[in-house]
């Protein structure tokens, strides 16, 4: 092997990951974001620290003194919002998001049993991987993030036939639907689906995502909108919930997903 003596590898490469790393701990960052109410704070901390084995008893204890809906919104969801912030700041990473979401869902399942008439979600979202496409890891991650943001996610899985997708949309009338494709030969399912939906008078946004799909492609067919990364999807969902249609999402896309 050649000798590297005297070689200065900073002239060859720069480790931005080391230089840019955040030195704050999750606890230090979350301190200012956690609820001030001690009961809600304790519940939120269960999510923040991904304690899926103890979140149940903690929520049960909280239910003795607080309203179940408040525990969900001011405790569990608030904890998840801290996690999302830590993720955006590169303090938490994907495994933490997945485990925190699992913790939150356990807590919500317990608390919502005591909500009279059940808990209202922000809306229904259908997610699927395109017909012929077996790759769904991106869709699974996005599903966790959308569900964590308070939506009812219907996950249809991968390699979903177009007819099944259309039938599910007609049946459940979602706020919007999203599809992922990792192959250029499967992403053509999205314009085909959009065309059928329009023919049926269903004008919901149809989000195109996945490795094969780019913004230009997703914007090339009516109803089509784009999400490049999983964390962008809840941001776009919020705008749709506020009444944005697919045209306005496209127009304001950069500002909606800004910073992601």
């Amino acid at each position: 092997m050649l000798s590297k003596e005297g070689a200065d590898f900073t002239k060859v490469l720069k480790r931005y990951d080391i230089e840019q790393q955040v030195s704050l701990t999750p606890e230090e960052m979350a301190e200012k974001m956690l609820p001030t109410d001690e009961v809600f704070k304790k519940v939120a901390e269960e999510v923040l620290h991904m304690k899926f084995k103890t979140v149940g008893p903690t929520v049960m204890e909280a239910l003795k003194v607080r309203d179940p809906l408040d525990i969900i919104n001011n405790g569990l969801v608030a904890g998840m919002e801290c996690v999302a912030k830590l993720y955006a700041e590169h303090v938490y990473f994907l495994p933490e998001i997945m485990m925190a979401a699992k913790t939150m869902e356990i807590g919500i399942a317990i608390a919502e049993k005591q909500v009279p008439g059940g808990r209202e979600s922000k809306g229904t979202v259908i997610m699927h991987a395109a017909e012929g496409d077996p790759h769904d890891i991106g869709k699974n991650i996005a599903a966790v993030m959308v569900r964590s943001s308070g939506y009812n996610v219907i996950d249809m899985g991968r390699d979903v036939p177009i007819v099944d997708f259309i039938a599910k949309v007609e049946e459940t009338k979602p706020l919007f639907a999203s599809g992922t494709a990792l192959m250029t030969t499967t992403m053509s399912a999205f314009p085909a689906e959009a065309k059928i939906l329009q023919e049926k008078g269903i004008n919901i946004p149809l989000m195109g995502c996945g490795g094969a799909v780019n913004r230009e492609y997703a914007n090339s067919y009516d109803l089509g909108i784009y999400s490049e990364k999983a964390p962008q999807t809840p941001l776009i969902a919020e705008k749709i919930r506020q009444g944005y249609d697919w045209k306005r999402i496209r127009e304001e896309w950069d500002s909606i997903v800004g910073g992601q």
Partner: protein
Amino acid sequence: MAVTRYTKMAYDNADDLVMGSAKHPVTYGFGLKLGAGYVVPEINYAPRPGTEKDPERLRKEYVDYITKDVLDRAITVGFPNVQLETEWVSQMNQAKLSAPVVAGQEEMCEKYHEEYGLNCGTRQTIPDQREADHGLRPGMDSAHAYPEKFFECCDIACENGADNLSVESVGGKEFADYAVTNGDIVAFLFGVGYLGSIDMTYIWEQMVDICKKNHTTPGGDTNCSGANVSMFMAGGMLDQDVQRTFSAVTRAISAARTLCAWECGALGPDKDCGYEGPIVKAIAGKPTTQEGKNCQCAHCDLQGNLIAQCCDLWSNESVEYHPEFGGTSVQCWFGSIGYESALMNTAIQLKQEKVLRDLYMYADRYRGPEAYILAYDHAFEIGQVIADNGNDLYLRSKAAGLKAAEIMLKGYESKELGLTTKQLETLQDIHKKLSALPDDTDKFVEWAIKEYKDTVPNFNMKNYDL
């Protein structure tokens, strides 16, 4: 075909690993010799969306446009060798779509070989559409019959003239997806290192038989569906969904799996996207295809130079067919890999291949953890522990993962390899978890089944004969 596990290294020491030469060269196609003293560019491409809807349009796209463009450019620039890789789009599991493409490419290669003396041939990489939830074995998937279609594709490729049969198999993918998103290295070890190896052995025993019947060379496989998912989710310097120390360990484990195809009698070269190539070449001495800096049309990795260090074929990964300023996309990217191969071959001819190898290697050695463990000296060390435990699919995978972790920890302690705090914490956790695993395979498998049967979506023991 009997399975012979590797328990000894093909090479005596890491310094013998060089580009363009493998201990066991392979000859096929029209004058192609792989690993026989020179590096061959391997061009890979995808048809334009929509062409797959009609057999004649697809044949024309692959044969009259893509293949002809590539072979013409070889003559134009003066490249003596080229391998074409056709990664079948999923629709090609129908013979009416795939057979004319395979036969047409073969015919075109023969024509250019006879007319110009161009050494060329085709690798046909069939799609593995099998899904764990429906079943990986014939008779299990009543919805799509994907396992049956898998072997039908092997027949179609070989019967219509494929020179090299390869695949990116998906055994263990359900575990890889779970492991990567949840940061669970033990799940990756069990799913990819153990279960994935069982599946790869199962399919390749049959693939080798099909190849033999048709005089096709069985090439190789890759853990694209596992270690590459991990690597690309780890991403670049500031994309840290997955820690790059985690990704590096998954790469080492994947080598123990990729080796299975060759243990079943496949001859190489293996698949370009298997960045574990330096490790498996060190063990088996069969030619390896790699991709890096000249595959920016498809992938951006952190070892673009390093990974060329001991390749036998040099690939662009894949590019969609379309026009560019310099010609069609396949011509442009073939030019890119062709000139890089020419540089490597010049180094070989001037007996400077070890110098060029080291230049490539040092250019990325410290760029990140995965590059660090794939540097040829470290790749050799990982290969050694796999061979030392060669007869046991679990133990060799565990040994590979542990060795990779030890190499990185040692590199960090000696201040050779920089790590972020999070990368280091993840690495220490991985080392602790792998070290704590039992040395008894049966005990581990029994534990892992209980641990993951209700946790990993779509885990079905019948997929792996358990």
